[in-house]
């Protein structure tokens, strides 16, 4: 998958019109100046030889030097990775914290008002664009109530955490509706199982039954769905970072695409692809731990 992403990025970047040299040099650039830069960057070679060189660099883990910043792509990614990782982490946390109670509520009150409300809300949530939801949150919690900053990375540890609350909530809403629906269906299936009846018959409280026996068994498909959707979450950070002025990998990716900074775009997409693969691997491992029936291999 990572190789596919790398190849697709390379081909797309070279297929769209736009000249990195022109973007760096400005409108007064002479053809000679553009040619000189293209030569320095190796863009005057054939596409095939550029691709061979690019793949060679990837294999040896050389991501090259940014056209725009003139410093190594790896160090720039290092500067911006933490911000995005923290955002994805907090968004995942929020997603779990919101999903579990809502799904439990809906499953235990099947077809009653609470269930209808949760399902209705999740449909609404699916249709809501992240940037709009983010702006609504800023308007309420930052501007009106003054509880949280409107944007930016904040200073100090607490300032930083504080600055990630609204963006994390916004990003989590991109996946919460899906997770709630999945967990609810999973729980309903498990609720009809024999071991649940047995647990109830043993006199366990309803909450204990729901959270310990039902949720634990229903969580596996949801976890897999979460793993898959973290890829989507990582993608949505591009928009969320922009709305909240967080300068993570997403905003760096956007500006690098605008300036046709090929090494930078290739480097970031590669890092994002690798992290998605790693996250999926981690969720598979976790699922195996939660359910002994799943075997790796």
């Amino acid at each position, binding site marked *: 998958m990572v190789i596919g992403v790398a190849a697709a990025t390379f081909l797309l970047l070279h297929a769209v019109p736009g000249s990195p040299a*022109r973007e760096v040099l400005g409108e007064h650039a*002479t053809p000679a*100046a553009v040619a000189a830069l293209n030569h320095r960057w190796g863009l005057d070679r054939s596409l095939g030889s550029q691709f061979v060189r690019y793949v060679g660099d990837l294999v040896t883990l050389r991501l090259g030097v940014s056209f725009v910043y*003139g*410093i190594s792509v790896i160090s720039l990614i290092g500067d*911006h990775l933490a911000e995005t990782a923290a955002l994805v982490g907090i968004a995942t946390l929020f997603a779990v914290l919101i999903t579990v109670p809502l799904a439990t509520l809906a499953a235990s009150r099947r077809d009653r008002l609470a269930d209808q409300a949760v399902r209705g809300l999740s449909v609404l949530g699916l249709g809501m664009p992240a940037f709009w939801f983010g702006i609504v949150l800023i308007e309420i919690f930052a501007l009106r109530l003054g509880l949280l900053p409107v944007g930016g990375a904040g200073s100090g540890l607490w300032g930083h955490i504080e600055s990630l609350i609204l963006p994390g909530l916004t990003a989590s809403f991109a996946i919460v509706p899906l997770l709630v629906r999945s967990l609810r269906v999973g729980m309903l299936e498990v609720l009809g199982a024999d071991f649940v009846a047995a647990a109830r018959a043993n006199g366990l409280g309803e909450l204990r039954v729901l959270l310990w026996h039902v949720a634990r068994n229903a969580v596996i498909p949801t976890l897999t769905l979460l793993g898959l959707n973290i890829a989507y979450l990582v993608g949505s950070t591009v928009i969320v970072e*922009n709305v909240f002025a967080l300068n993570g990998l997403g*905003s*760096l990716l*956007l500006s690098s695409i605008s300036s046709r900074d090929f090494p930078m775009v290739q480097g970031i997409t590669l890092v994002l692809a690798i992290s998605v693969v790693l996250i999926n691997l981690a969720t598979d491992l976790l699922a195996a731990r939660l359910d002994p029936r799943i075997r790796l291999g």
Partner: protein
Amino acid sequence: MTTEPEPRFTRRRLLRNGAAGSVLLAAGPLLATAPARAAARLASAHAAGVPKKGGTLTFARSVAPTQLDPANSIIAGDVYTLDKIMEPLYLTSPAGQLIPWLAESHTTSADGLTWTFNLRPGVKFSDGTPLTPADVVFSIKREAANTNGPLSFLDAAIKTIKASGPNKVVFGLSAPWAPFLSDISVFANAIIPANFGGKSEKAFFAKPIGTGPFVLDSFTPSSNLTLKPNPHYWQVGKPYVDAVQINYVSADNQRVLQIQSGEAEIIDQVPPANVSALKRASGVKVELYPAWEVDLLVFNEKLPQFADRHVRRAITYAINRPALVSATSFGTAKPGGSFVPPSLEYYDPNTPVLAYSLANAKAELAKSKYPHGFHTKLLISGGVQKWSEFAAIIQQSLAPLNIKVTIDSPDNAAFHTQFESFNYDMFIDYAINDISDVDEMASFELNYKDGGSSSYWSSYNNPAVTALVNKAEAEFDTTKRAALYAQIQALVAEDAPFVPLDYPPYIYATSTKVNGFAVNPGGAYRLENVWLS
């Protein structure tokens, strides 16, 4: 608390400033000693009240710094960062005038070929070493020799640069060149220590040393940066603030929110739609600064329909520019007329503009080879609301002429590639002047052969106009020069190689605590005069 732009920059004031500036330029040897006072006056003019020291100024900016080498910079995020650290010999004031900066004065020989700059005494770099003529020679030679750099063309007139005595630098030019003082004031000609102060070029620009009010404290490319005061700054007592924190905030809406919430004290690029709401917001003031900028609708004269002068004139007549501006700019921009923006010296308010008239438009088209109209495409940079609005209005405006317009809006880099390879019918873009001399714009937009862009990629080629542009470059008498530019503006308005749609200002919002902030028409702002109350 709001401030209207008009009192700051009336036309009369502009002309007066322009005239004063040019007398200094032309009569260099006689008047060249006045400048220190001018600099002092400039400084005090900004800050009403007694400046207070201290505080951190937080600036939410739409553009990100990427690197800080003046010779290789053109992106606003780089330019408006490095100019706080490194300074040129002359500088453009907020009123658009050239003022002596690291040079205290200059003289010009009678033939216009030899320019001698007297360096300001007592100037030190931020590492404490004094500024010497050798530093100036090194810096400007480096920029002039960097022929692949974005702005090195501005130094094309320089033939020789020599240090002379302890505080003079002498430039020999290859031809008399009236715009020279403007050229020397560009940020690309900023002065750095000779031989990078003994460091490698790369190491030097990672932590540049200059004579500017600030030094680089920390820098995360494409994110944020902190400036700290230069302890050796030559304007004793400045800068007033303890630190400047510049944050990259690309989303317009987020910048507006940050100024409203008080998280930022200055924001740039305020969307015109937000101006009136911000003016009403408490603790916020909005300022509009005239810019050396004009938005142009450009015709591709490589195509037969736009090589036809009547077609270009018909389209110009058909666009109601005052209506276009009032529909899109929320009262912030001025309708276009001459291709020279009113904030630029030698703008002629009496330029014969082809003002909106559908009857005239139809009459012109009837005289053309395309009396029944045609299909055409309009290229704009995608994702920019203003350009989409402009394009839609132009599309509607040309419908009565039976000119059917399809709008094409690729992303910005693709847009550049398309029009610069003449792969377009019409396009809209902004044209700016980097320096205070109108020659940059005039030659770039009108000198087909030597201007560097085939007349802003229009392929407009009027030998009479080119001859006038060249003549004005060598004309030191400001009255005669003004007459030449008036002629040029009239010819261009009649030929209509492009439609100057509007003159947009720079729009900034600041906290009411911010004093002494001002932007020059080139878009640069100094921060040494800024203080927080």
